[in-house]
């Protein structure tokens, strides 16, 4: 992946034995839930025999059969629509979007059918829609997007985005067990770049709980997904300059763990809202509003967003690098805020 914009994160070569990558962790979570609960089934494009474009579901058709790992036509409306119907019948479908960009093709099914069903008719739709989001791999405008804000803006949906292998496994399991529709945004840059040792025993990561990844006292970087690694890298650089940054990984974007965010900012009194998605109407704007409403008196500086600009995701490496937030851009913003 030479020439890839540096999103940060551990060196992929440094992992030891017995460690699980982000992609393997998602698969392990899916497998455990399928083994535990026969209502769980998967559907999507090329997920069965081929194992998925990113091999997230590799081997599962051999283990669970083609009734529970369904290769579908290229039809996201049908994939999510069928998942909605099956979920209404008490099944626990997990629909894959081959690239999360294609989730727009199923927008009606998600925002109008799945999200509103319980409210309108009392019928819950416990489905999971998962897929690879994010840039850094020169995928161009249609294989790099971060569309989470559209869905965090839709009442009835839950939105999660894990940053670590541990969370990827624990959150996919929680998403499958959740009684409401959950959108599970994976980051394709992380699939094979991060690994860690996972517990042998079963565990869940609760939806709606953020995690403080690094404790600091000067300013809080509130972020999620691959940008957690960017924030940690920047925090290291800033530390050498005498700026002590706290890094909060939201993990769930809706319902958001406002308490953890507030606690952090009440301590540091300054906040940077960092995300890879574009700026206007993004999750960062929502956090800024929450901070302004709920802990205005604690703020000692402006609420600063570090995000992608309001453009499509460009393809060519220098263009994509200019587009994506990175450690350098984050450090610049942090220095200015620390000095405020």
């Amino acid at each position, binding site marked *: 992946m030479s020439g890839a914009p540096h999103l940060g994160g551990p060196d992929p070569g440094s992992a030891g034995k017995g460690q699980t990558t982000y992609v393997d962790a998602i698969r392990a979570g899916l497998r455990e839930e399928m083994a535990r609960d026969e209502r769980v089934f998967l559907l999507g494009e090329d997920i069965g025999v081929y194992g998925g474009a990113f091999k997230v579901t590799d081997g599962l058709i051999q283990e669970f059969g083609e009734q529970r790992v369904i290769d579908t036509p290229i039809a996201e409306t049908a994939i999510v629509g069928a998942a909605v*119907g099956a979920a209404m019948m008490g099944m626990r479908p997990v629909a894959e979007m081959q690239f999360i960009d294609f989730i727009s093709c199923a927008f009606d099914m998600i925002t109008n059918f799945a999200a509103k069903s319980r409210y309108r008719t009392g019928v819950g739709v416990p489905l999971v829609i998962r897929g690879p989001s994010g840039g850094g791999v020169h995928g161009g405008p249609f294989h790099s997007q971060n569309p989470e804000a559209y869905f965090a803006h839709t009442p009835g949906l839950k939105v999660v985005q894990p940053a670590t292998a541990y969370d990827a496994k624990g959150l996919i399991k929680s998403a499958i067990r959740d009684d409401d529709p959950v959108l599970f945004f994976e980051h394709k840059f992380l699939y094979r770049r991060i690994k860690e040792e996972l517990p042998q025993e079963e565990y869940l990561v609760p939806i709606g709980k953020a995690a403080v990844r690094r404790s600091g006292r000067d300013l809080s970087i509130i972020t999620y997904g691959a940008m957690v690694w960017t924030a940690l890298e920047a925090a290291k650089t800033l530390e050498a300059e005498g700026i002590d940054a706290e890094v909060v990984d939201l993990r769930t974007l809706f319902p958001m763990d406002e308490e953890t965010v507030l606690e952090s900012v009440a301590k540091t009194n300054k906040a940077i809202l960092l995300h890879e998605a574009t700026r206007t109407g993004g999750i960062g704007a929502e956090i800024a509003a929450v901070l302004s409403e709920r802990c205005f008196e604690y703020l000692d500086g402006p609420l600063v967003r570090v995000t992608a600009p309001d453009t499509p995701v460009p393809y060519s490496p220098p263009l994509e690098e200019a587009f994506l937030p990175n450690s350098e851009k984050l450090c610049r913003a942090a220095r200015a805020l620390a000095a405020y």
Partner: protein
Amino acid sequence: MDLSREQKRDLYRFMRSNRVVEEKLVNLYRQGKVVGGLYRSLGQEATSIGTAYALKKGDIVGPLIRNLGVVLVMGYSPRDVMTQYMARATSPSGGKDCNLHFGDPDRGVISPISMLGALVPVMAGIALAGRMQKKDIVTMTWIGDGGTSTGAFHEGINFAAVQKLPLVVVVENNGWAYSTPFRKQTAAKNLADKAVAYGIPGEQVDGNDVLAVYAAARRAVDLARSGGGPTLIEAMTYRMKGHAEHDAQAYVPKEELEEWRQRDPLERYARTLVESGDATAEELAAIDRAVTEEIDREAEAAEKSPLPDPAIALQNVYAKPSSEKEPVVVRKQS
């Protein structure tokens, strides 16, 4: 035709109920008691009722707004429909959604959303789940000629065909999608032909002949139940009123309306029953009276039903209620 005399009269009673409920709703609408639009199925009653009547207990339907007859066949009451239209707390959706937007899988009905075509893939998913759960479920959904232009219609039928799912898709070709005539909707000569492209059977039927509709639906349902996959039925009918009650349908040629008025499905079926000896004119008149009395009572009860408590507006977005209260402001201790 395996319909008993009783069942044939039952069909008539449902068709009459469908019509009278709507006539009652028109009165309520003119009195300003209906909240929002009123969507008629005048002239299309045979299509709704003939198709739904071919199903059995345990089957699941996804009707649209002009399928009042379907929800009656599935066991919802005239009062349910009228409280829906009047946005009452006691309505099936509790005031959360309008008109025929209600349902409950346990009662065999999936609520539509307004986006046409969306029900087709969802009903395919219902059928898929039924197969996984080893349940004997046939699913049926309805769509207009206009709705067949949507992507969801295509994706849903295609998926159901590939998976050989027990799904019957009834296209009610009533000639009009709001103000758009059939010829501006599609270049296809007829909509049943679309089945060929999906590799499934397609059949065109006279949608104003309830017995013909029932027979076609029964063939499709039997095929679906035996593992033969989906069928596309095109029922030829006509929308005798505007898109909704506000629409005077000035765009509809008068002679065309008159032509279809001659083919009114209810009057036609009454003649058939009398001619075949399955009912006398007096017996049908008795059914009419009983239906009208029942619906008068139901309307009275519906009008007495309360409007919903505003607190309900915040409820049931998620399975577990979140903190739907004012956020707490964190203040510095002074």
